């Protein structure tokens, strides 16, 4: 009997949905596996169809994208009601992702920049979108734009996580086969990824970590065989879950942590801060400070994908 799935997105880019399509001919197996009841990227079902379902009707719903506004939350809660299992798909739903970087700012900061201050915007009256608008008989609504970006599990119970930005397509496929075959691990697990840190799977040669300075891309031509961190490029491999096949590192750029932390690590960014500090080759405060001065933009490097899931969740205002 065919399973019943829902696939939806919050504050997303569509990359996770495209990753499902990137399973190429395996999409036919996925279509054989399940009937899909909602998938705005690819299929024309409306919210009304989901509202009409019985509770727990869907076997699983896959939610990508972060929770940025009240519509994202509303549909997340709707799908939670109508689904037996909720799966957070991709880095945004798992740990906040790139949209989570907006947690350095407030709602007002973002709205002002986008609608009033940005250089290519002409908005003489300074109009900002409102939740409710009416003119005569016409009435319109918009969702509430939240002050703080949230991960999916910060608003509803989530049974499984498929990490990555985007998740590797074949990993999504193998996660779906676990659902089909009833072979899911304990609830709360990350599926479609490894257990260990990325360093274990990274093909580069690792020797000793003794950093004398952090380099920017124009300051070093990295040796393609050696560990990037050892060459002065901050790589989040030590604190990131494996499963991506080291795709960034193989392309010559350091890991930015999109697969999220390994089990039992609550805060990926501060774990990296610890790893980075431990690797500095200095003992005197002035030498330590000189190396630290070479680090550009620490918050957005350490917490590139995980700010919304971090212990502090956002910049304190």
């Amino acid at each position, binding site marked *: 009997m065919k399973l019943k799935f829902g696939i939806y997105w919050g504050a997303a880019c569509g*990359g996770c949905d495209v990753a499902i399509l990137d399973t190429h001919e395996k999409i036919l197996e996925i279509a054989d596996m399940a009937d899909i009841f909602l998938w705005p990227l690819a299929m024309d079902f409306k919210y009304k169809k989901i509202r009409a379902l019985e509770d727990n009707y869907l076997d699983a719903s896959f939610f990508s994208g972060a929770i940025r*506004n009240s*519509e994202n939350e509303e549909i997340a809660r709707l799908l939670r009601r109508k689904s037996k299992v909720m799966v957070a798909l991709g880095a945004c739903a798992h740990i906040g992702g*790139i949209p989570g*970087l*907006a947690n350095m*700012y407030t709602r007002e900061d*973002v*709205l002002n*920049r986008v609608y009033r201050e940005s250089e290519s915007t002409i908005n003489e009256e300074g109009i900002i979108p409102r939740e409710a608008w009416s003119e005569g008989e016409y009435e319109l609504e918009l969702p509430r734009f939240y002050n703080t970006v949230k991960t999916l599990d910060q608003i509803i119970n989530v049974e499984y996580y498929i990490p990555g930005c985007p998740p590797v397509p074949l990993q999504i496929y193998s996660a779906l086969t676990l659902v089909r075959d009833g072979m899911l691990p304990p609830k709360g697990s990350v599926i479609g990824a490894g257990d260990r840190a990325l360093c274990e799977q990274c093909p580069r040669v690792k020797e000793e970590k003794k950093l004398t300075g952090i380099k920017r891309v124009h300051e070093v031509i990295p040796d393609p065989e050696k560990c990037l961190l050892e060459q002065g490029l901050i790589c989040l491999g030590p604190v990131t879950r494996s499963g991506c096949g080291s795709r960034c590192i193989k392309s010559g750029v350091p890991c930015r942590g999109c697969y999220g932390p390994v089990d039992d690590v609550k805060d990926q960014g501060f774990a990296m801060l610890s790893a980075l500090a431990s690797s500095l080759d200095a003992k005197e405060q002035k030498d330590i400070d000189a190396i630290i001065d070479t680090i550009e933009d620490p918050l957005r490097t350490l917490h590139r994908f995980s700010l919304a899931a971090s212990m502090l969740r956002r910049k304190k205002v």
Partner: protein
Amino acid sequence: MKRIEIDPITRLEGHGKITIFLNEQGEVDNAYLQIPELRGFEKFVEGLPVEEIPRVVPRICGV
């Protein structure tokens, strides 16, 4: 005034909803397209080192 809501619009990247208002004769009186999504890339890329921009802004659209 009768209204037809198309929510969500589908088979593209992004969120959108269309509201159509009909008069008594059933003719279209007015129609509105709304984009109920905003992430604020314009704000949170401020101050990023330039070499990191190509790693952040592709997440605007993954299609």
